[in-house]
């Protein structure tokens, strides 16, 4: 499949008074046309920072320290800020976690959709308004013309996220980055929003990068998965590979901390003990070693190499080393 977006060895750090926080440490992934890639990880794993870096939206003191981001043959990390105004919104659009705060509270919803259309497509007001109304209808908002004249506080959380989606897709972007689009919503609304995103993707062929910590969401929507931990991608593969043939103990931990219907009901959910590494001083070995029940001495000393299990499935873990003791996931975590 043709690669639309390729990220290679991306490094992002935040220069703070206390020192440098290396939030993203050599992340690589690619995205094909029409595909949905899920980036999974707990908070602090660097997934949102990665997304913001792709949009070149990092705020001071954050900056891209290394690596490349290639969109449709264009290298974005070296692009001038001016050029990014043509990419953002029009080519790569983004929706955010909290629909309650992501819309400008003092501006009518219609205005907020229209301004992008006017800037990128040089549309007249009437034309832009018509397009905005059309988009609201497509995301399932009734009485679109009237709703355009309302302010965000007159919408519910789910409706606002629909507005965000309408706003993001109004310009037919080729890539949509959705940063935890359902986390702040009620469970019933979550399903509706995911359904809507899937439907719109089929209609438009947009590629989606879905950032989430919820494996349920991944199973439902994604084609491929990147599992991030401590600013690195620890395992990547198709949904099937990551769910059924996961090789990284962290992925196992994620899977075991998720309730599942196809498991006996009395199976206990297993939380992963401990907390993510301090990225002021990232560990020199595997970032997960501290919390890994299978950790070996080598894990603390040296970063694990990437092992290719198939064309699509790669994992960074010392357990893949031929010298390591064999470990299987299906034995429940033994402490």
């Amino acid at each position: 499949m043709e690669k639309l977006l390729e990220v290679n060895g991306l490094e992002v750090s935040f220069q703070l008074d206390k020192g440098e926080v290396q939030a993203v440490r050599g992340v690589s992934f690619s995205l094909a046309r029409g595909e949905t890639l899920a980036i999974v990880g707990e908070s602090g794993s660097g997934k949102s920072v990665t997304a913001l870096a792709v949009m070149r939206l990092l705020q001071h003191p954050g900056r891209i320290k290394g690596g490349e981001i290639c969109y449709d043959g264009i290298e974005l990390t070296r692009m001038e800020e001016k050029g990014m105004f043509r990419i953002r919104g029009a080519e790569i659009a983004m929706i955010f976690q909290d629909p309650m705060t992501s819309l400008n509270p003092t501006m009518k919803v219609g205005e907020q959709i229209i301004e992008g259309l006017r800037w990128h497509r040089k549309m007249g007001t009437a034309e832009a308004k018509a397009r905005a109304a059309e988009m609201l209808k497509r995301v399932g908002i009734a009485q679109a013309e009237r709703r355009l004249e309302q302010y965000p506080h007159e919408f519910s959380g789910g409706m606002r996220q629909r507005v965000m989606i309408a706003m993001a897709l109004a310009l037919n972007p080729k890539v949509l980055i959705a940063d935890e689009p359902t986390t702040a919503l009620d469970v019933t609304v979550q399903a509706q929003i995911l359904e809507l995103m899937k439907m719109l993707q089929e209609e438009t062929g947009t590629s989606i990068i879905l950032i989430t910590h919820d494996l349920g969401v991944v199973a439902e929507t994604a084609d491929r998965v990147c599992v991030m931990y401590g600013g690195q991608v620890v395992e990547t593969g198709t949904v099937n590979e990551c769910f059924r043939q996961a090789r990284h103990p962290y992925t196992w931990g994620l899977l075991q901390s998720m309730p599942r219907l196809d498991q006996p009901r009395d199976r206990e959910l297993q939380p992963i003990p401990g907390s993510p590494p301090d990225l002021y001083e990232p560990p020199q070995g595997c970032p997960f070693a501290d919390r890994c029940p299978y950790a070996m001495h080598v894990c603390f000393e040296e970063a694990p190499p990437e092992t290719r299990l198939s064309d699509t499935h790669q994992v960074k873990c010392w357990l893949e080393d031929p010298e390591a003791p064999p470990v299987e996931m299906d034995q429940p975590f033994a402490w």
Partner: protein
Amino acid sequence: MLVKYVMSRLLQMVLTLWVIATVTFIMMKAIPGDPFSNEKKLPEEVLRNLYAYYQLDDPLPVQYVHYMKNLVLLDLGPSFKYETRTINEIVAEGFPVSAQLGAQALLVAVVAGLALGVLAALRQNRLLDYFSMLVAVLGISVPSFVLAPILQKYLGVEWELLPVATWEGFASTVMPTIALAAFPLASVTRLMRSSMVEVLTQDYVRTARAKGLPPLFVIVRHTIRNAILPVVTVLGPLTVGVLTGSFVVESIFSIPGIGKYFVESITNRDYPLIMGITLFYSSLLIIVNFLVDLAYGWIDPRIQLAKGGK
């Protein structure tokens, strides 16, 4: 709902005004001795006016009703010092001058303060930021009655750039305007900077940037517009500050406004004039505050005045 809110606010305003008027009345009566007969010998004519106005021979409640009736009719009564003029006339004469000076100062303060605040927030921890913070700190720490003589000494006396102590033409308004604008300018700068800094970190600003809108567009439409809201709320208190500041600034620069009359009335212990001007300014400020609240509800769609937007 809006009508109900306006009504309740109006009621509250009337209550506040009534409190002021009553307190003023009680104070007039509480001044040790008879305010109209002790200390200075008052001219016969003034005394006659005062007696006619206050009906000093009547019992207190009757005097009170009479006094309130006059106030409702917007009659502030006669003055001690100025034999031939009523307080109404003095206010009518001085107010245009004070209003011009006050409006000029407020305009300078708001326009320059907003600009400095915005620029400081956009250039955080850079030279311009430090400069505007310096302006803000000095403006808050240097009272107008210190700033005014400094301006007079240098701009007026030493370098002879501007006229001292006259009130003719625009040039003579420059120094008083600066002296009066310094404090509100500093407040607006500080408030606008912190408000901008906060808005800049809001999610919706990131959304706007993610839309690919150019920075100037994002700053004007999404940041400044929202950051200005808190500044609107302090317009009331700022007006109060300018007004009280005008007392000293007008006296220092000998500007024939209400403030100068007010300070003179204090020195002369011209009680009716003190009370009259206090009443006049209190009412003015209460009305300004009310209008500012209404304006705020109108600017910010989230605030529903009916629900008691504070």
